[in-house]
């Protein structure tokens, strides 16, 4: 008897479930989905949190799947805002075009790719671009700190780096090796910067590279190296990243907004406009260098024009 009762109770339950699972173009689907670069995650999270505080009931979701993953999903119509730590490639743009998805690229912060070592590593303070290249190039024979520079301890270098879907990976390999994607592969790779910081924090003779906000979040456990690009060693501080002294390892971070949901996602514009204008303050708090004010003004104007044009 009891069994039959519960089986009968299952029918309306299942019906309710199926009704709830209908495709969500309408009311229930007004979730703004932010995906993409883990270098931009701390900013996206801060913006989403503050936006929700000022707009109670707003529905924002933040995921991390790397710059390439985020842009791919943007062009497949799965996400509305993609954080990117590099500009979209022409292949990616073509995919967006063929899917009929227009987009806006809005710079929101400047960040420096930061090379980090364990806080307990006091042997090295600055690396030259040439040393970085020898360390990370494909087929690199550097396995030991002493291979990198005579005088460094004969300890094994344990490397932690971003995975191939990461914009930081694309950017770093392009700048340091001169060819996008050229990197040794015999090390731990992840799209999540936090895990890189944790890996480096866990081993005294390790080294890794990550976005400056992720570094700022783990400053107590890992130490940033200075980088010598030929004009002396430069520490990747917010000021040096902001004024360009940390080039060529500093770069602008963008959000790409899909411009295809104007009717359905009125709140998308509100959110993205908030993202741009709040970035100035939140970028600094989250460990990036803010952009010059004109850049934010230009983005807001672009956004207003897009909204005008689509309504």
């Amino acid at each position, binding site marked *: *008897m009891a069994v039959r009762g519960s089986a009968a109770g299952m029918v309306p339950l299942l019906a309710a*479930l199926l009704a709830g699972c*209908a495709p969500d173009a309408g009311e229930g689907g007004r979730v703004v989905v932010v995906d993409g670069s883990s270098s931009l995650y701390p900013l*996206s999270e801060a913006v989403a*949190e503050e936006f*929700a505080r000022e707009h109670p009931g*707003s529905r924002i*979701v933040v995921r991390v799947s790397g710059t390439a993953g985020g842009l791919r999903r943007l062009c497949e119509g799965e996400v509305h805002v993609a954080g990117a730590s590099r500009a979209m490639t022409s292949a990616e743009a073509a995919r967006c075009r063929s899917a009929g998805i227009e987009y806006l690229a809005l710079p929101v912060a400047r960040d420096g790719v930061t090379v980090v070592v364990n806080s307990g590593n006091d042997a090295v303070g600055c690396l030259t671009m040439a040393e970085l290249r020898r360390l990370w190039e494909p087929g690199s024979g550097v396995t030991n700190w002493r291979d990198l520079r005579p005088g460094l301890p004969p300890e094994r270098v344990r490397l932690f780096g971003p995975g191939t879907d990461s914009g930081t990976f694309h950017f770093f390999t392009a700048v340091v090796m001169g060819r996008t994607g050229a990197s040794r592969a015999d090390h731990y790779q992840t799209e999540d910067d936090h895990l890189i910081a944790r890996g480096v924090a866990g081993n005294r003779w390790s080294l890794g590279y990550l976005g400056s906000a992720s570094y700022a979040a783990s400053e*107590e456990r890992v130490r940033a190296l200075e980088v010598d690009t030929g004009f002396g060693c430069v520490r990747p501080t917010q000021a040096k990243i902001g004024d360009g002294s940390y080039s060529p390892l500093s770069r602008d971070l963008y959000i790409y907004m899909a411009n295809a949901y104007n009717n359905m996602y009125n709140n998308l514009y509100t959110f993205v406009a908030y993202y741009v204008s709040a970035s100035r303050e939140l970028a600094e708090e989250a460990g990036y260098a803010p952009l010059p004010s004109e850049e934010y003004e230009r983005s807001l104007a672009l956004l207003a024009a897009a909204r005008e044009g689509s309504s």
Partner: protein
Amino acid sequence: MRGAKRHRDRIGTACAVMTAVVAAAFLAMAAVLVVRAWGAVGPGFLFDPSSRVADRAGIGPALAGTLWLAVLTAAFAFPVGVGTAVYLEEYAPRTGLAAVVGGAVANLAGVPSVVYGVAGLALFVRGMGMGPTLLAGGCTLAALALPTVIVTARTAIRAVPRGLREAAFSLGATRWQVVRGQVLPAAAPGIVTGSCAAFTRAAGEAAPLLVLGAVSFMTFAPRTPADPLTSLPTQVFAWSARSQQDFAAVAAGAGVALLLLLLAMNLVARAVHRRVQGVSP
């Protein structure tokens, strides 16, 4: 004789010691979590969304996500699992295809959970176009729980005395009447207990959900199965991956909440068990 008895006593003592060790280990783990979580848990912890500031971070969306996942998993896996078990035990021939299916199901129970995540990503998230939603998560966890549900339900059905069936058949009952009137009521306690163990285990899984695309942060608690995928285990993972030390405490708090939730689910299972047992002949 006396030697054998003393031997048995020694085995008894050894078993008691092992039980004590296990109990102490579990208590110690729970105590560590509670101690680490102490102070990190504010008034809004149960209802607030996560935050970039550890003091403000809560488990509202994650808790709602886990409750949804538990319901969806049970709703999908229970009828399908029990139905399969009834068919395999009461209807199917003992040889041929059914026997192969039965053996395969038993093997599936041992497949690592992350493999279900990969399959769920291909089948539910992409293939059926569900996207990374709670629905896709529930389907994946149901697939994960299904083999265990089937295996335990089969065992419970097999334990029903043959005499019960034969008596019913001799009174002219059809096979379905025997199953519904005799076998299922008698096997119900075992089926419920085994299934609930499978559901609580599924509710504690993080790996398959991370593969499907669980969120890192969301500002609201999910209200329908079509909402984005989040759960307590994935939230614990997201927090413990962070570098800031104070998030370790928040992660421990979420861990305590998960433990309490699983405990509550077990208590519910036992209550159902007792009720079902009371009703059965």
